[in-house]
């Protein structure tokens, strides 16, 4: 794939919808709940919710309603679990949409809002012009909109809502915890798993190279086919990492590409999802690669290209004992003599799957 194509696709990826915010009365269901308790679900809505969920698109609610009544109605329909951060109150819908965006930490330019009332759609569109506003009458075509078709549908996508739901529970537990951060981490029963990428990991690996900027050492992107070639190459290691804790899985959150040259090994790419930034697991993958290089008795090099947001990865390398040995334009080449390799932190169990 050409670099330009990658950029175009990355842009398209940015604009695909990540969260759909639903009105309830005369949108999700037929009728007005406060006037008549016997509302019926709008035809096709259940299937739309399930399909969006499968594609990894989140669903939320912005409704002017009685919260208890509306939530128990959703429960009755067996749909309550599909919705994150339901905003059921008497506020302006633009305020509810903004609150959901803030809670999810997802930009409004990836939001869609569905309502049967032109006034509500206009109010949201006026305050948040970047939100895609959809008339409930057009629900039939919703799933066919290009922006509702994410480029990547992976095992991760289908778990996305559940991962957010575990994050909510986790955040509550963290807020209630009174000890130090390290004590909290040790109570999570984290398991960090490192393995060589399998074919089923490649879509997610490609997605990570495109979506991750902050915790990414070089920003090198690779297509599915290139990644598959590395997977079969004797001169490369394509490693993926996943994280689980007592609240659930974070999914595949790390990726590393190591080029195993004869004179030295080079970490071309090391990235971690921002979702695990506060989990203290950022040094585990590089620590593992360092110990393998030491066993193979080769020096370990690493590429680093600054992008204005990834300085934490440079600090990780430097504090991990890497020294800058070469500079070509933006590209810094670092080298580690492997005289000191940090042990894995006590609060996480590291599970290494070797073939």
């Amino acid at each position: 794939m050409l670099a330009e194509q990658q950029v175009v696709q990355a842009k398209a990826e940015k604009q695909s919808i990540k969260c759909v915010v639903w009105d309830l009365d005369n949108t999700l269901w037929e009728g007005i709940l406060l006037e008549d308790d016997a509302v019926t679900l709008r035809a096709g809505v259940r299937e739309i919710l399930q399909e969006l969920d499968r594609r990894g698109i989140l669903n939320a609610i912005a409704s002017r309603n009685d919260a208890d009544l509306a939530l128990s109605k959703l429960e009755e329909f067996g749909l309550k679990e599909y919705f994150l951060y339901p905003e059921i109150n008497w506020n302006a819908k633009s305020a509810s949409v903004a609150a959901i965006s803030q809670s999810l930490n997802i930009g409004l330019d990836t939001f869609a809002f569905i309502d049967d009332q032109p006034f509500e759609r206009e109010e949201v569109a006026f305050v948040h012009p970047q939100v895609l506003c959809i008339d409930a009458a057009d629900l039939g075509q919703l799933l066919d909109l290009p922006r509702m078709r994410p480029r990547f549908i992976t095992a991760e996508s289908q778990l996305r809502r559940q991962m957010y739901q575990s994050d909510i529970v986790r955040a509550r537990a963290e807020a209630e915890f009174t000890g130090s951060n390290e004590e909290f981490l040790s109570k999570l029963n984290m398991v960090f798993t490192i393995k060589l990428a399998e074919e089923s990991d490649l879509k997610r690996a490609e997605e990570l190279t495109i979506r991750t900027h902050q915790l990414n050492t070089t920003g090198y992107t690779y297509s599915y086919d290139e990644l598959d070639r590395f997977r079969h190459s004797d001169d490369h290691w394509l490693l993926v990492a996943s994280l689980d804790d007592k609240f659930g899985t974070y999914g595949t959150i790390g990726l590393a590409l190591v080029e195993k040259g004869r004179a030295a090994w080079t970490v071309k790419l090391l990235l971690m999802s921002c979702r695990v930034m506060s989990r203290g697991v950022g040094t585990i993958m590089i620590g593992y690669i360092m110990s393998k290089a030491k066993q193979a008795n080769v020096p370990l090099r690493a590429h680093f290209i600054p992008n204005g947001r990834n300085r934490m990865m440079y600090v990780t390398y430097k504090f991990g004992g890497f020294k800058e040995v070469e500079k070509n334009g933006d590209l810094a080449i670092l080298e580690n003599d492997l005289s000191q390799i940090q042990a894995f932190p006590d609060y996480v169990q590291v599970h290494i799957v070797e073939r």
Partner: protein
Amino acid sequence: MDVKLKIKQFLARYFKDYNLQDDEDIFSLGFVNSLFAMQLVMFVEQTFQIAIADEDLNIDNFRTINALSSLIQRKLVVTG
């Protein structure tokens, strides 16, 4: 305010009930994760209004309260 005092106040958030000595290795106590390292670097830059260049981003400059203090003094002299 005294440079060392400011450093201690910052570190106290991470080492709650631990009385960290000026020459004690912060990183040997297990606080080696990337986020902490980054927060430490940002703390130094923002609190003392100095820029830490790539060549100063060396763990030995950040390893103890003494090391941090002398890094900061050195940078303050250069910019001041």
